[in-house]
């Protein structure tokens, strides 16, 4: 668990006059599960989106394994193949079936063989418990089902890291568990995960560390039990009182 797979150094990002990130340093070890919490506007989603460069940093560096994501010369598409992402609003492709959603990128980006991709789609759908939904279009699926297809779609690229941007925030309460169960399995299998979420149950069950962010800075980071029970910072305590 010593080898860092993600290294964030002095990450700064402005949106106009608002400073979203004011200098964030974070190292994530291979196989580590990190939960990022914090009030809205604290920069946690921005930080996540900078890791696969959906947003560009203004200054600072982000490394994924031996590749500098923030470099001009980075082969960003190659890096994105290794970094899967799951969005709050699922973002499934509405004109494609569940199976086609999962198969598209392996087929046109990795150029994997048809039979192999088909087999992978089958096993991924089984893994997220949706084997019977192969031919369903996104609008025929519930939110929880859509999010599970979205996770399968990201996993189809065989990523080494998975980013989750508030994966359960858009879901009805009764659907949250089915998504968290899939994520929990993933964590147990040793996937490196960076999760922006306030699901404390998931944090306790799966997270190695919880990172608390506020106003564009990391206030403190600690294993979940330690952070929830004995926060060192006043701000952390105030935030936890709000959500627990």
């Amino acid at each position, binding site marked *: 668990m010593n080898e860092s797979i993600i290294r964030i150094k002095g990450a700064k990002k402005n949106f106009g006059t608002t400073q979203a990130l004011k200098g964030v340093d974070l190292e994530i070890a291979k196989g580590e599960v990190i939960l990022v919490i914090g009030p809205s506007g604290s920069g946690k989603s921005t930080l996540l989106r900078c890791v696969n460069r959906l947003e560009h940093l203004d200054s600072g560096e982000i490394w994924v394994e031996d590749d500098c994501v923030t470099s001009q010369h980075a082969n960003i598409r190659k890096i994105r193949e290794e970094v899967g992402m799951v969005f709050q609003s699922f973002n499934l492709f509405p004109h494609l079936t569940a199976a086609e959603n999962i198969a598209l990128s392996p087929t046109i980006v990795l150029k994997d063989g048809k039979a192999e991709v088909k087999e992978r789609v089958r096993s991924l759908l089984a893994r997220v418990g949706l084997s019977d939904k192969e031919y369903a279009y996104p609008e025929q699926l519930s939110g929880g089902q859509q999010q599970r297809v979205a996770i399968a779609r990201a996993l189809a*690229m065989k990523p080494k890291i998975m980013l989750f941007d508030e994966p359960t925030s858009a879901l009805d309460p009764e659907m949250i568990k089915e998504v968290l169960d899939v994520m929990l399995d993933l964590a147990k299998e040793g996937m490196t995960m960076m999760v922006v979420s306030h699901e404390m149950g998931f944090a306790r069950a799966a997270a190695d560390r919880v990172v608390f962010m506020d106003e564009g800075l990391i206030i403190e980071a600690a294993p979940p039990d330690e952070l929830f029970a004995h926060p060192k910072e006043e701000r952390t305590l105030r935030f936890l009182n709000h959500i627990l």
Partner: protein
Amino acid sequence: MSDFLKFGRRKTPSPSPATASSSSGNTTINVTDGTLIPGTGERSILSAWNISFFGAMALIVILPLVSPKPYLDILAFVPDGLAATFGVTIVSIVFALCLGLLAGLGRIAKTKSVNLIATVYVEVIRGIPLLVQLFYIYYALGPILHLKGPASAILAMSVCYGAYMGEIFRAGIQSISKGQMEAALALGMSRTQALWRVILPQTVKVILPPIGNEFIALLKDSSLVSILAISDLLRRGREYASTTFNYLPAYTIVALIYLVMTLFFSRLVGIMEVRLRNHERKHN
């Protein structure tokens, strides 16, 4: 978003469509070619569309029966021009769609120079009347480019409608949520792959109705090519009129045929629009 695509028929030099909304968002002023299409609640036989369409059809049948001398002759003489009218319309719309896709992509391109070229194209073309463009390409450029009548006509109509199509493509692409592009990029796709495999297939559904309206507008505007010695519907009518001096009957039949075609196609576009909307509603 799709409200944005209910394009007011051109003659708007600014990129904003002639669709006005009040601050509450309820008032919509829509100036497309489909305004005669009855609403879903309007099933009356006396709807404006029924009166216009069946009235025109009836006149086309009754007039030759009542006085066959000019009218039947005209009906026999004029349809030759229909082939030319449809030929010019269909070939032009195909080229206009290609140009429109390029212009639309250019308008949203991140490369400044590409964006500038596309925007200048759209603004310049939309600022010049089609008739002037026809004259310009046929009379001014024709001798230099060695273009014959039909080629000039198709070139002018394609270039002109390509600009309007470009705005439809732009609005259509921009109506697709940003998350779709992000999801595609996050999966390792290039922008081009994301565009062809993810964005454009979704755009088609949104832009079909406005493109149908452009087709109808182009069908009508194709009558302008009669000045380039192309024997389209209008020109055939004129040829008949100038040899027999039966101006009123000749142009009446020409107008009625245009009206029937336009009403028929706008009904078709209307049905398509409703189907697409219902399809969307069913799945949401």
